[in-house]
């Protein structure tokens, strides 16, 4: 198709699809009138059943925990796939850039704050990953925060340090522990004769305490590991592509 034909076909089709969509939306109850029943039932039961005050985390790691298993492994597969696609090829030589610097040309005004913020970012990430059951936080956010800390190191131009902090074999191992650990927690429940991913750890007495929620904080921790390792691996791969010139 020529670009013009394509645009005409697209415009007509999109208009049709938009009309369909409008027809569908007209059947929705309107913004702000969510009818339930899924949400209200969960809101009603969650604190009592899981002792987690962060209901979103309860849904993610408990009610719909199996979705999260799948989602972790999507990230896992993407990171593995990235390593496959960007691996060094048979006919490529690895060489340093001509100007012999392994740094991005980063001004000190970026480098210094970046390095200064690294520590607090790690702390925030850790805190987020370990408080899934109470606050708006959890493994995803914490894991990504941890990865961001490493990005800050990277921003500071210290790619070599970044790589040394996160060698590929270690990342693979952490990813395996993170994603696999989650799956194994589910298996433990199965071994105890419970359904897969059942919450087999005592829930704790006070809803909202750090030790409450049974397996929720545990799963959140593993999710945090997986997310952090996967993102660090992804960014590391791209960084390597950018900073090391490979010639064919």
């Amino acid at each position, binding site marked *: 198709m020529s670009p013009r034909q394509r645009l005409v076909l697209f415009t007509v089709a999109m208009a049709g699809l938009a009309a369909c969509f409008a027809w569908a939306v007209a059947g929705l109850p309107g913004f702000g009138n969510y009818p339930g029943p899924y949400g209200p039932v969960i809101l009603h039961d969650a604190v009592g059943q899981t002792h987690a005050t962060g209901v979103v985390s309860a849904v993610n790691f408990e009610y719909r925990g199996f979705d999260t298993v799948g989602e972790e*492994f999507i990230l896992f597969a993407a990171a593995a796939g990235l390593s496959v696609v960007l691996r060094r090829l048979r006919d490529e030589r690895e060489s340093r850039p001509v100007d012999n610097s392994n740094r991005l040309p980063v001004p000190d005004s970026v480098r210094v704050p970046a390095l200064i913020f690294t520590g607090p970012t790690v702390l925030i990430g850790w805190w987020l990953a370990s408080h899934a059951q109470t606050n708006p936080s959890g493994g995803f956010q914490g894991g990504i925060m941890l990865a961001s800390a490493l990005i800050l190191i990277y921003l500071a131009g210290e790619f070599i340090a970044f790589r040394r902090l996160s060698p590929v074999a270690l990342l*693979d191992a952490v990813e395996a522990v993170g994603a696999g650990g989650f799956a194994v927690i*589910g298996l433990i429940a199965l071994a105890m004769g419970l359904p897969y991913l059942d919450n087999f750890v005592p829930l704790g007495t006070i809803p909202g305490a750090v030790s409450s929620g049974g397996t929720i904080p545990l799963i959140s921790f593993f999710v945090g590991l997986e997310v952090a390792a996967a993102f660090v691996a992804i960014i590391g791969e791209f960084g390597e592509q950018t900073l090391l010139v490979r010639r064919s």
Partner: protein
Amino acid sequence: MPSLPVVLPLIAAAVLLAARPLARYRRVLDLVAAGTSAAVAVLLGILIFRTDHASTYWFAGFRPAHGIAVGIAFTVGPLNAGLACVGAILMTAAMVFSWRYFTGVGTYFHVLMLTFLAGLCGFCLTGDVFDLFVWFELMGVSAYALTAYRPEERGPIQGALNFAITNSVGAYLSLTGIALIYGRTGALNMAQIGAWVSRHPPSGLVVIAFVLVIAGLLVKSAIVPFHFWLADAHAVAPTPLCVLFSGVMVELGLYGIARMYWSVFGPGLGHRAAIGRVFLVLGVLTAVVGALYCFRERHVKRLLAFSTISHAGVFLAGFALLSPLGLAGAALYVAGHAFVKAALFLGAGIVLHRLRSVNETWLHGRGRKLPVTGALFTAAALGLADLPPFGTFLGKGWIDDAAGSPAVTIILLACTIVAAGSVLRVAGGVFYGLGDPPREDERMAAEANEETGETDSARQRTPLTMSVPLALLVAAGLATGIAAMVPRAGDALLSAAAQFQAQPQARPADVTVSSVVTGLVSAAGAVGVGLAGLYWRRIPVLRGRYEPGARGTGLADRFQSGVINDYITWVIAGLACLGGVLAAIIRLRGLAPGSRRPWHASDISCRRRSTTRRP
């Protein structure tokens, strides 16, 4: 127990990733991977026979209260467990086949294959629409990465990009549909949504949500006009992966559509006959387009890919008949086709391994030194042509029976003849040197010669790990047909199909004379088409006009352009048309009486228990 087919491969994948530094002990790692998928196949086999009715498994033990599901459910029935089982068997064959196929690779290949398997099983077994999306994406991501497995070749990246972008757009449209239906029903459990839908008159929301939800599945199952990505991806993906793509991934998309229709939207939408006809037209169109493109192809893997598209159309036609017999026929056809198509791809893989090409023109007569592969390839091609007693012939026979329309039967028969005939043309030309050496088409040659580097190791002889899976798959294709001819097995399949559709089983599953005759006619026709293709230049009527396999026709290339922008445009156009047609059906015909049934709270946990057995 139903969770294990998903969880086991995931844990094995994690272990294998961690074991990457141990790549020296490759054989052990290979064994772990192949063993895991074999174990999954066995588990699923047990599940098929343990569940004579659809059984529901609630994750984390959240059983529904007052008919409201709060957790994720797996709904395991014989049909979906069976499909997953076929997938696991093909996965095992592909793993064994790749034993000697790739050398010097890390464990990434196995890791991604295992996550693909987990996604496949999760997709088949789940009873929750969002969970379906999650496993669909896991399968997708693994498949994209595996398609691009050989980035040093020129083609794979292009094919993988088209594959990934088209499928992602489809998946996001599906998610939009899921969000819409959730916004109205407040449920994600399929049975619960189904119950809601059947209690309310069909509205625009339900119709459009259905169209959007199946968008991603239509893309995955390569239904015209959503099919363009498939040939690009197949042509470049590693051969063991093509086995899975053609053998189960396409069929999974169709299964998803059937599941969405029967478990979620169908009972409430009503207008069964009209909607069935829409899908029948789509199926027949796909079958015709696939067969025509198949005929004009010289790149063996692409040719097989187009034959898959053609068969996907036949499967969709089977589903679209909306009767237990049509569905049972489609299910049997899917299984029979999966085994023979997998065998054909493995045969192509052996040819590629030994002769380093998949260009039919170049290969002409060069396959004579591979007598065993040639015989098995030819047998599988005949299986593709519905030769009794391959599983395909009976499946096709049941579809024809259920259709009860000579026009449909003849069109589908013609499509099978042309598609399988093209494959037989390859078999005759490559392995037996029949016919005239074809003229070299320069562009084809250049493209097919790109395909060289899947293997490095010695190619003096075919390793047993390659030929044995091929032989076993051909045998499995035969066994499927023979097993289905046993009346009890056929009836069990039919009653499973009736259960899936929550319909009474109307008639016994018979092996009719007409199905045998149709199968024989089909095989004979395919041989005829194959020979005609080989001796094209000697046939006076055909000579001079057009050469089979030549890519002369510009119009066809303009559709299959390889440009991602075009593919997405077609997806949107197809979706708008489908939405428009379904909307017209619902709006113009009004609410069909009698299409709704009263709803019970017990529907959630186990909707269809009753089936009428044969007296």
